[in-house]
């Protein structure tokens, strides 16, 4: 996994609350045995009409969204299923940070394991970002702050371990593998 210290780009805003993982990527695209190439199906049922044509005005397809790597969404983003295909699709589409005032537990854990920074910001900063689509923002993991084009800044919360892994490009599994002797001793004690 690539180390990630800072994400700076224009922001794409999806203001809806409670965006569930079925919207991020519908279940019919979960038949893959891989994790690559899912970006083409990101929000597909919101982006395209029944005939597969782009719906005009959808923020992700706005020319100003080109190259954007920060998604700002309404509260409780990523609720619903545990499918890791949701962060895989976002990452594949170029996103490196998702910002909201709250992010669903399983999605948040999945995102951090895949180089997609789950950024939980205070309500006032969230509202400022929701109100400024396609403006420029910086998410800095070093200082744990978000800075907006308007000059507004604020801090965000992220689990320290997740931050450490993201900033150093570490896979959490490495940490668990190191715990094997402890796990073995624990198992032996329980099964005695």
């Amino acid at each position: 996994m690539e180390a990630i210290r800072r994400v700076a780009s224009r922001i794409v805003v999806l203001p809806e609350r409670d965006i569930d993982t079925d919207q991020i990527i519908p279940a019919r695209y979960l038949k893959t045995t891989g994790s690559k190439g899912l970006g083409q199906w990101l929000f597909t049922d919101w982006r395209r009409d029944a005939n597969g044509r782009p719906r005009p005005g959808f923020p992700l397809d706005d020319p100003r969204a080109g190259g954007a790597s920060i998604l700002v969404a309404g509260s409780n983003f990523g609720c619903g299923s545990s499918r890791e295909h949701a962060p895989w699709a976002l990452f594949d589409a170029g996103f490196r940070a998702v910002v909201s005032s709250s992010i669903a537990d399983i999605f948040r854990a999945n995102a951090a394991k895949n180089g997609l920074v789950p950024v939980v910001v205070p309500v006032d900063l969230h509202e400022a970002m929701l109100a400024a689509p396609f403006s420029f923002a910086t998410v800095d993991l070093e200082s744990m702050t978000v800075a907006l084009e308007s000059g507004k800044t604020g801090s965000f919360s992220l689990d320290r371990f997740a931050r450490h892994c993201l900033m150093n490009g570490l896979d959490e599994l490495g940490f668990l593998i190191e715990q094997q002797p402890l796990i073995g001793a624990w198992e032996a004690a329980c099964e005695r």
Partner: protein
Amino acid sequence: MKPRTLFEKVWDAHVVRPETDEAPAVLYADLHLVHEVTSPQAFSMLREKGLRVRRPDRTLATMDHSIPTVRKNGRFEISDDEGRTQLDALAKNCADFGIELHALGTEGQGIVHVIGPEMGATHPGSTIVCGDSHTATHGAFGALAFGIGTSEVGHVLATQCLLQRKPKTLEVRVDGWLKPYVSAKDVILAVISKIGVGGGSGHVIEFTGSAIRALSMEARMTVCNMAIEAGARAGMIAPDGTTYDYLIGRPRAPKREAWEHALRGWLRLPSDEGAAYDKSVTIDGSALEPMITFGTNPGMSIPIRGEVPDPERVEGEQARAGLAKALRYMGLQGGKKLLGHPVDVVFIGSCTNSRIEDLRAAASVLRGRKVAAGVRTLVVPGSQQVKREAEEEGLHHVFIESGAEWREPGCSMCIAMNGDIVAPGQIAVSTSNRNFEGRQGKGSRTLLASPLTAAAAAVAGRVADPRELGS
């Protein structure tokens, strides 16, 4: 010792390494359930890194999400290559890594959250994980059970452990006694409506109170199953006589001395007198009515005879916009009743409501009646065992004679990955757990309800109050 909740006791008993500011706790998983959709990438990771499965004996796999629920000439036909590839991958992964698999067409196959309990593999006080958010189902036994992503599936395969921050606790107490025709599904829909789809975030819910204690094990599973729909990490119910009566004698339940030993431990699991929860919510179970959803998340529900909320009367711009968007998608109008609204499809099944008691409830409504003309009705048992049991009781005759389709077990139309779909624009009354946009097929519209309410809709061809039909 400080009084502890049920959750805290189970958590404490499974911490291999306590959490610090720098690192989450290393939590041991007693049982890892695996299915075809969220596991292939995890097995690929094991192969890439040259790792083995640490405890194949604590790992159990089934095929459920993308499998067909009809046989043609006695055989299952998998029409799409991707689906077949995924099923073949699971079979190969289980064979290569020595994992017990209940494959399509075998007698132990079924929905992952139905077969665990019916085999007796779900034990009070244990930790259970699965790459599926409805793993919370197993919390009905006083287990700590939660859904994980595919990376974590890989972690558990390799180490039998997970890195977890300790969640907070939320007590949801349901007092009183449920009225006739009010079921576990109605309870959990009412709970989610009250606390919201994000109301349980960061928390493990413990369901308590007289109305919960009076529920059967299968009904408790329905309640815990949908804890995730309130955003909770897990739902739990303290084990009691109902739990032990259900579990004893099942193939994977401890036997004789081992049972006695386990039972002594389980009896200490219920929350201690004076144990503190981070939050508490109380609901009067006696006041609950049969519930039905009207919107595009499971928190958007009303009593069956109630009115769909009017966006004009909702406080807050975002909430108003959200409700208006949901109603537009559903093709419904605020301020009107759902009762009498025509329906196209009825689905009775899913890990929420596909157990024998659910099928008995549906059959009690359908017996001697006909499904309304033009309503496609699917009854999909949760497992091969549920199917056998239903057929021994003759329930399949009731369904078939009413005009419903009697299917093979699987997730089917709950997730619509196997060709069992609701067509664009159609409206389904479904006993499943999610009414998200497109959940039952692109453009599908879902009304979540209990098996009684779903069966009543099948007969009436409209949203109907099961109390009016009688059984």
